[in-house]
């Protein structure tokens, strides 16, 4: 099993962290993982994104050209990456910021109001964790416990107090994806 994801959004939406936490979780489970960010000045203002692969086999290209999953946290990201999805691939849309419908009909789509759900648990900024919850619910590449473990590693000590909130956000995302 090998899953290739592209996670994309505005600069401040925490999409890089999402990818890192996901890859870290895979690593805890002994899987092969890779994480490759977009980088450089184009990040400014534009979209940031990362390519994540979690796999049970050797990973060839860390560069994902036909993802199994695209997570679009904003509209430009959907416009840019939805066309790259594999046939039958999964598009996770942050419906809080995207009200356009994707054009492709050969893919699966789920809409998560990530910002709203995050606000409900107490912080607009946790929208990325909501989306991450949706990913692991739908794609089943890693366990939620691994995600939480990985989150601890990835957050600096001083932010560890936010972990419960993030856990909550994760769960909301999972629930929302289940519905």
């Amino acid at each position, binding site marked *: 099993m090998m899953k290739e994801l592209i996670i994309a959004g505005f600069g401040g939406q925490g999409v890089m962290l999402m990818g890192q936490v996901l890859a870290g979780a895979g690593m805890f489970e002994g899987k092969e993982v890779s994480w490759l960010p977009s980088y450089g*000045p*184009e990040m*400014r*203002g534009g979209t940031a994104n990362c390519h994540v692969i979690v796999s049970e086999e050797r990973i060839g290209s860390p560069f994902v050209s036909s993802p199994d999953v695209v997570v679009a946290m904003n509209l430009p990201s959907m416009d840019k990456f939805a066309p790259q999805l594999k046939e039958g691939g999964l598009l996770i849309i942050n419906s809080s910021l995207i009200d356009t419908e994707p054009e492709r009909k050969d893919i699966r789509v789920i809409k998560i109001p990530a910002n709203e759900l995050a606000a409900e648990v107490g912080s607009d900024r946790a929208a990325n964790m909501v989306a991450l919850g949706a990913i692991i619910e739908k794609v089943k590449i890693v366990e939620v416990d691994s995600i939480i473990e990985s989150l601890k590693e990835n957050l600096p000590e001083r932010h560890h107090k936010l972990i419960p909130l993030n856990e909550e956000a994760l769960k909301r995302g999972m629930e929302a994806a289940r519905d």
Partner: protein
Amino acid sequence: MKVVAKRPRALMDKPTHYCPGCTHGITHRLVAEVIDEMDIREKTIGVAPVGCAVLAYEYFDCDFQQAAHGRAPAVATGIKRVLPENFVFTYQGDGDLASIGTAEIVHAAMRGENITTIFINNAIYGMTGGQMAPTTMIGQKTTTSPYGRDSKSAGEPIRVVEMLSTFSRAAYLARVGLFNNKEIKKAKKAIRKAFETQKAGQGFSLVELLSTCPTNWGMNPAEALDWVESNMVPYYPLGEYKTPEGGEDR
């Protein structure tokens, strides 16, 4: 109704890639206004640096050359020697001008190269994500001075205008700040004077603009302006350091 203030002709009608609140945008506009007012757009050749302003050629509506990191004064020298009747200006950041490009700016000033340099001192490397610049303040944290700039190992910030003031053929040297409207007006005047110095063939001119990098300073744009005023201005005193006296040639 009459438009009293709008995008100058010398700027393209194009959004920039600069971060919100970054003063690069203000400086672009000031330079463009001066070019318009002097009516020299079609005779002006800009030299874009390597730095956040690397894409300056996308925003100014005049001929441009993109220069290797730090080498804008050398590139400008090449252009000006071929086209002495044209206006040539470089637009350079503090990493570009005061670090890798030290030799080039010093020697352009020494030669009294008849060009104008717009020098953006934002105390950091913006483009590459916030490394220490030679102009970074003591104690300032950057990705390559994570514990704050330490004078013992990294030295004390370089004052470019003061250094260049030792050259007799550096004709116009001024430092201005962009932290409020009054100072922005002064900045424009200084830029105008610098271009006028070039027009009169009086030698090298440079305006240092104390600028911001909200993104890499980790501040919002307004805080950044305040930081310029409270932290940078005391170390980098504002004013005209050299003005051309007399005529055509000194």
